[in-house]
C-alpha cells in the first residue's frame, strides 16, 4: 500500500533521513520505533507532505506522492495525526471534527461525524465543549477522531500515548486495535515500544535516519538488541 525507497530528508544542513526504505501493506499495523532524533516523526512528515524530501521516493497505492502538497496527500487517503495532539483549542469538539472532514463533500459530513463519534462516545458527550478544555486523554482521542474524519485508508499516528496516564495509554492502544479491525491501515510511531510492538504486526527500528532492524513485531520483541535499547530489558 505504501512504500518508501531510500527516502532522504534534510533540515537545512542536517540530514534527518539518510535513505529510509520501508513498506506498509494494507490492513496491518506497522510500528516505527527509535530514540529521539532517529527520524520517526520526520518520516511521517515526509509521507504527509508537511516537509519536503530531498531524495528517494514515496509510493502510495501505486502513485508517487513525494513532494505533493499536504492537502493533495490527504485527498488520496493518508491522514496524519501529528505529535503533541495539536487540537484546535478555541474550536468546539464538533468544529474540530468538521475541520477533520474538511475535504469531505457536504452531504457526507453528518454521516461521517456520527460514525466517528460512534468510535469515541466520550467525545459525543463533550461535543460543544471547547477543545482546549478537554483532558489530555480526551484531546488525544479528539486528535485521532479528527484524523479519521476524512475516511483515510492509511492513518499515521505520531506518539499517541505521549504524556498520558497509563490507563489512557491502554485505552488509546485498544482504540488502535479496534480501528485495525475496521480495515484501516495504521503506521504508528511510538516511544512506548513495548506496547506498540504488542499490538502491531510488523516493526522497523530507526537509528539516526536509517532503518537498522525490521521484522514481525514478535521477532523484534524477542530480539536482544531491541530489548536492550528500547524495552528497558
Amino acid at each position, binding site marked *: 500500500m505504501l512504500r518508501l525507497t531510500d527516502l532522504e530528508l534534510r533540515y537545512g544542513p542536517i540530514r534527518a533521513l539518510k535513505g529510509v526504505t520501508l513498506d506498509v501493506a494494507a490492513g496491518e499495523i506497522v510500528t516505527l520505533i527509535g530514540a529521539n532524533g532517529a527520524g520517526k516523526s520526520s518520516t511521517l512528515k515526509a509521507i*504527509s507532505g*508537511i516537509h519536503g524530501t530531498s531524495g528517494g521516493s514515496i509510493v502510495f497505492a501505486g502513485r508517487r506522492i513525494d513532494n505533493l*502538497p*499536504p*492537502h493533495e496527500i*490527504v*485527498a488520496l487517503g493518508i*491522514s*496524519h*495525526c*501529528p505529535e503533541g495532539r*495539536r*487540537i*484546535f*483549542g*478555541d*474550536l*468546539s469538539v*464538533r*468544529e474540530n471534527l*468538521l*475541520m*477533520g472532514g*474538511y*475535504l469531505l463533500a457536504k452531504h457526507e459530513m453528518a454521516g461521517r461525524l456520527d460514525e466517528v463519534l460512534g468510535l469515541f462516545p466520550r467525545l459525543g458527550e463533550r461535543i*460543544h*465543549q*471547547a477543545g482546549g478544555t478537554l483532558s489530555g486523554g480526551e484531546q488525544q482521542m479528539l*486528535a485521532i477522531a*479528527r*484524523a479519521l*474524519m*476524512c475516511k483515510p485508508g492509511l492513518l499515521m499516528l505520531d506518539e499517541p500515548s505521549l504524556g498520558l496516564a497509563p490507563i489512557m495509554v491502554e485505552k488509546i492502544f485498544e482504540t488502535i486495535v479496534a480501528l485495525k479491525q475496521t480495515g484501516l491501515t495504521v503506521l504508528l510511531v511510538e516511544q512506548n515500544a513495548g506496547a506498540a510492538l504488542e499490538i502491531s504486526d510488523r516493526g522497523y527500528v530507526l537509528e539516526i535516519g536509517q532503518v537498522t532492524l525490521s521484522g514481525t513485531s514478535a521477532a523484534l520483541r524477542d530480539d536482544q538488541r531491541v530489548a536492550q535499547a528500547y524495552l528497558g530489558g
Partner: protein
Amino acid sequence: MNARNLRHDLFFYLGILLICVPFLKIHTLYVLPVFLGAWGLRRFADFAGENRLMVTLRERTVNSVLAHRRVTVGLILAVALLIPLGASDYLIEVFTSVILYAILATALNITVGLTGVLVLGFIGFYAVGAYTTGILTAKFALCGFWIALPLSGLAAMLCGILLGIPALRLRGDYLAVVTLGFGEIIRIFLTNLNGLTGGPNGILGIKRPSFGLFTLDHPRDFYWFALAVLSLVILIVARLVDSRYGRAWIAIRENEMAAGALGINVFRKHLLSFSLSAFFGGIAGSLFAVKQGFISPDSFTFYESVLILCMVVLGGIGNVAGSVTGALLLIAAPEFLREFSLYRMLVFGAVMIAFMVFRPSGLLGSRVIAQEIKDRADDGP
C-alpha cells in the same frame, strides 16, 4: 497573598498612576477621585467575581444576550440608527468616524483575530482605498463615487494579494515587520507621487456621493450610509466566521501544522483572509475620502495602524462585536476627553497593559466561548 495577586496589584496601581498623570496637570486633587473610583471598581469586580448571586446574574445576562442574539443586534442597530436624530452635527461626525474605524477593525480582525496573522501596516490598505476614490472622482474625475467605491476595495485587495504572495510565506514577527514596511511605503509613495496623488498637499474637493438628485451632504445622511456599509461588512464577516472558511482560518490560527495535515491549503486560506481584509480596508478608505472631502498622507500614519490593532485586541481577538466595541471606545472616548488629548497615548498604553494582565482575551472575549453557550442554548430544552 500569592504571587499572582501581587503582580495584578502592581500592574493595577501602576496603570492607575499612569492614568492619573494628565489629571495631575490640572489639579493634584483630581487624582483622588480617579484613584478611589478605580479602587472601588476593583473591589466591586472582586466581589462580583466571587459572589454567587453576581455570578449567576452575570451568566444569565450573557446567556440571554447570546440566546437572543437577533434581539440584541436589533436593539443595538435601532440605537445606532436613532443617534443622529438627537445629536449635534459634531457628535454625528464623531460617530461616523467610529463607524469607519469599526469597518477597519472588523476587516483587520479577519487577519489578526481569525487567521492569527499580525498586520502592522493595515492603514496602507485604507490609504489605497481613499486615494483610489480621490484620484478617480476628484483628481481626474473619471467616474462617480458608486463606481469608485468597489474599485477602491478592489485596488486595496490587489495590493493585498501582491503583498501577500511573497509576504505570507513568512510568519509571526517577520511578517508583521513586512506589513509595517508596506504601510510606510504606501505613505511615502503618496507623499512623493506628486502627479498622481498631489504629494504632501493631498487631494482636495472630493464630492459626497449622491443618489440621482439626492446628495448625502448632511452629516446625518452620510452617517446612515456608513452605518449601512458597516452592517453589510459585519454581516459578511459574521457569516464567514461560522462557515467552513472561518473555521479553517481559526484552525490555522490554532495550529498551522495540524490544519495543513487535515488537508487545508494553508497558504491559499492565508491569502484569502489577507486580501478580504484588504478589500474591506479599501472600502473604509473610500468612505473616509468622501467623508472628509480632502485626503493627504498625514491621515495614514503608523499611529493609525496601531490604533486599529488596539481596537481589535481591546474588543476581543476574533470577535466581530468586539471590534466594533473597540472602535467605539477608542474613537469616541478620546473625543470626550479632548482636554487630555496630549496624554491619549499614555492612557492607551496603560489600558492595553491592564488588558494584557487582567483580560488577555479582550473585552468581549474570543468567539468560541460565546459559540459554545449558544450551541448549548440551541440544544437545551
